[in-house]
């Protein structure tokens, strides 16, 4: 070998040995130490994450550096709130945890509404926030906030990672806590130096949490007591909530109704747990529930609450709620039992397991008369509205969406009148098909949620039923739907008002419509165009159905249907806040 050849050989060897690729390969294999940022990505792979939602920023660059070639898909929102609601929609539609990342400071605080929304509705989320370097924490560093402090009361649990060796364990625990028991959001705050420091990656097989052991099996004695109460009841009613859907107990619930013949009403979040098209369904109860659901609850002698929490929008005035009823309450969260309403037979555990046990034991009560009575109220006091030929009634739009989709669409909503009409006039027959912010009542939820839902369910058409107020709260997310060619249909029930507040002002505040008129509005059709969506304005009743049909034909981009509906239509029936069924407002007072 000549000198020249040897030099070239040495040069190549030198380059190879000290190239980054070789070094990282060498270190990976021999020491098995990887960066914290890589540990995060590897852990998410172990958790079979399919989608991650988020927005980058300074202290999370190391994590984004690894996300660049992660095998799961990353959905970049245009605002962190959009990312977390999308993850929430994904979680509600799929039953899997939603995964989110945002940077420190404002990135993290922009997640707050989304975390609280998920917390109130028991949605499993794992939320990563960036944090300034551990050495800087507490120094009021650039983009520093105490996010574990801020999220403590609105998350199921949270972590500040203080040592990279804890990182994998914390992620494992976060997924476990988020998805088990009563699910909820878990926040992991990751300082930037933790992302950059290295440690061996070992993803734990199991979690060791001595302070967290959810109860799944109901107490057999309590179950027997409940079955006996059911058997001897004369006027029973089932009150099913979101817990039934979360636990996947909808089939057991249907079985229970079939076996006992007991009428069933659901909460807003329980819709879809039982087919609303069935004669025994009383549909939704509560403030804007059906009169017959509230009638049945008020006159019952036994309420079987399953995965519901007696929220104030359901009970109205607590002291006069179901005055003659005994109450069986099945819930996985012991703190929900006897919190608002004193319960006679509490059964703590998983709805599905408990219903399975009950089905073995329960006997049908003799309630033909009661069922007949409820059925009669159902025919005398139906959900109704005054349809008109020269106006588009918002309820009419919802009914047509129901018809044109054969009830097979998945509906997300914003918050307000349109949300209640979507609840009342679309009939839900399957679980996870009505996706709405129930507990927190978050305007701006529906559009980003619809993005997450459409990703989880590419086989279904997804409608965001919106108001002209709510839709403007996260409208920037339209571009995300357009970018991913998601054919989400945004149906705006445009009445030029913040309608629900206006309704309260009309009914209870001397019609002083203080700051609720928003008819100085953007042109939603032009806006659709600007965002690469298909837009239509519908001002004639005759155009409602053709517009919906046209929207259903489009499959490669989002669609905005701007329905100009009756401006001062109200949501009825209405049990005013803190009142009882006797105070129900059935329809417009002339």
């Amino acid at each position, binding site marked *: 070998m000549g000198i020249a050849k040897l030099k070239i050989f040495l040069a190549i060897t030198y380059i190879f040995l000290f190239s980054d690729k070789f070094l990282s390969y060498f270190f990976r294999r021999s020491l098995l130490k990887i960066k914290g940022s890589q540990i995060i990505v590897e852990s998410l792979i172990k958790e079979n994450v399919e989608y991650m939602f988020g927005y980058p920023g300074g202290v999370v660059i190391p994590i984004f550096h690894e996300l660049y070639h992660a095998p799961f898909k990353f959905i970049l929102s245009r605002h962190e709130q959009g990312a977390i609601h999308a993850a929430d929609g994904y979680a509600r539609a799929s039953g899997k945890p939603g995964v989110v990342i945002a940077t420190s400071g404002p990135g993290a605080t922009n997640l707050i509404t989304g975390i609280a929304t998920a917390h109130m509705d028991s949605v499993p989320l794992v939320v990563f926030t960036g944090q300034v370097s551990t050495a800087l924490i507490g120094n009021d560093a650039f983009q520093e906030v105490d996010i*574990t402090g801020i999220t*403590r*009361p609105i998350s199921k649990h949270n972590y*500040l990672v203080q040592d990279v060796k804890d990182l994998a364990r914390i992620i494992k625990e976060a997924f476990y*806590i988020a998805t088990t028991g009563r699910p909820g959001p878990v926040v992991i705050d990751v300082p930037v130096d933790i992302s950059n420091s290295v440690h061996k990656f070992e993803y734990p097989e199991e979690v060791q949490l001595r*302070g967290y052991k959810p109860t799944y099996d109901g107490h057999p004695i309590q179950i027997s007591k409940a079955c006996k109460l059911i058997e001897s009841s004369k006027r029973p009613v089932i009150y099913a909530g979101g817990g039934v859907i979360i636990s996947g107990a909808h089939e057991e619930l249907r079985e229970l109704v079939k076996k006992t013949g007991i009428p069933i009403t659901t909460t807003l979040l329980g819709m879809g747990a039982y087919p609303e098209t069935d004669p025994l369904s009383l549909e939704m109860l509560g403030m804007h529930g059906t009169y017959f659901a509230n009638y049945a609850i008020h006159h019952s002698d036994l309420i079987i609450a399953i995965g519901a929490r007696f929220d104030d929008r359901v009970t109205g005035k607590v002291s006069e709620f179901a005055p003659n009823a005994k109450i069986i309450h099945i819930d996985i969260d*012991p*703190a929900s039992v*006897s919190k608002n309403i*004193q319960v006679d037979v509490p059964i703590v555990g998983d709805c599905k397991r408990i219903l399975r046990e009950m089905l073995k034991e329960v006997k049908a009560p003799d309630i033909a008369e009661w069922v007949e009575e409820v059925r009669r109220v159902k025919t005398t006091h139906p959900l109704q509205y005054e349809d008109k030929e020269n106006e588009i009634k918002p309820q009419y739009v919802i009914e047509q969406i129901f018809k044109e989709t054969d009830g097979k669409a998945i509906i997300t909503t914003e918050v307000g009148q349109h949300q209640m009409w979507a609840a009342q006039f679309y009939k839900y027959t399957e679980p996870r098909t009505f996706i709405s912010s129930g507990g927190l009542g978050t305007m701006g939820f529906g559009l980003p949620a619809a993005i997450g839902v459409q990703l989880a369910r590419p086989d279904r058409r997804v409608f965001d039923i919106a108001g002209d107020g709510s839709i403007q709260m996260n409208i920037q997310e339209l571009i995300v739907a357009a970018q991913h060619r998601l054919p989400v249909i945004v149906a705006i029930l445009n009445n030029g008002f913040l309608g629900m507040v206006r309704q309260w002002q009309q009914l209870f505040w001397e019609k002083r419509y203080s700051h609720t008129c928003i008819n100085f509005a953007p042109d939603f059709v032009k806006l659709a165009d600007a965002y690469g969506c298909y837009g239509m304005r519908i001002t004639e009743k005759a155009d409602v159905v053709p517009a919906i049909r046209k929207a259903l034909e489009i499959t490669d981009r989002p669609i905005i249907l701007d329905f100009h509906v009756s401006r001062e239509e109200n949501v009825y029936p209405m049990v005013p806040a803190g009142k009882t069924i006797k105070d129900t407002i059935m329809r417009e007072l002339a």
Partner: protein
Amino acid sequence: MSQHVISVKVENKFGVLARVAGLFSARGYNIDSLSVSRTEHDDISVMTIVVRGDDRIIEQVKKQLNKLIDVIKVSDHSEQPAIHRELALVKVNCPAAKRGEILQIGELFSAEVADVSLKSITFAVKGDSEKIDRFIELTTPYGIKESMRTGIVSILKERE
């Protein structure tokens, strides 16, 4: 409204005190006293919380505490035989002429004389809350310059 002594075993971790304290403030429960300390296990701390409320509230307090991931065990020491102790430091005005009188009160309560000056005596008195209340009551006429209490710590009695 009754007073309950709730003993909470928690993970000895960053932020646990804030979680517990935050729970009380967020839900509007009234804490009379709260003491936090280490236990025989390095990784477990104990919080003794004295809280006031009707049965429904106390029930909720216990359930909500149990819901916290870092809470290992919640026990209501008002429902079982337990020993409660707290410590108070009480600085009583004490001109020389009154010294004998005041020291006598201290003796009756087995209070330790922690400090003496020309104008005051500082006692360290321990016992259950009732005893300390009484001690403070009896020294008040002399003028208490400053007083503070640790809050209760509580342990269950052993029964064979």
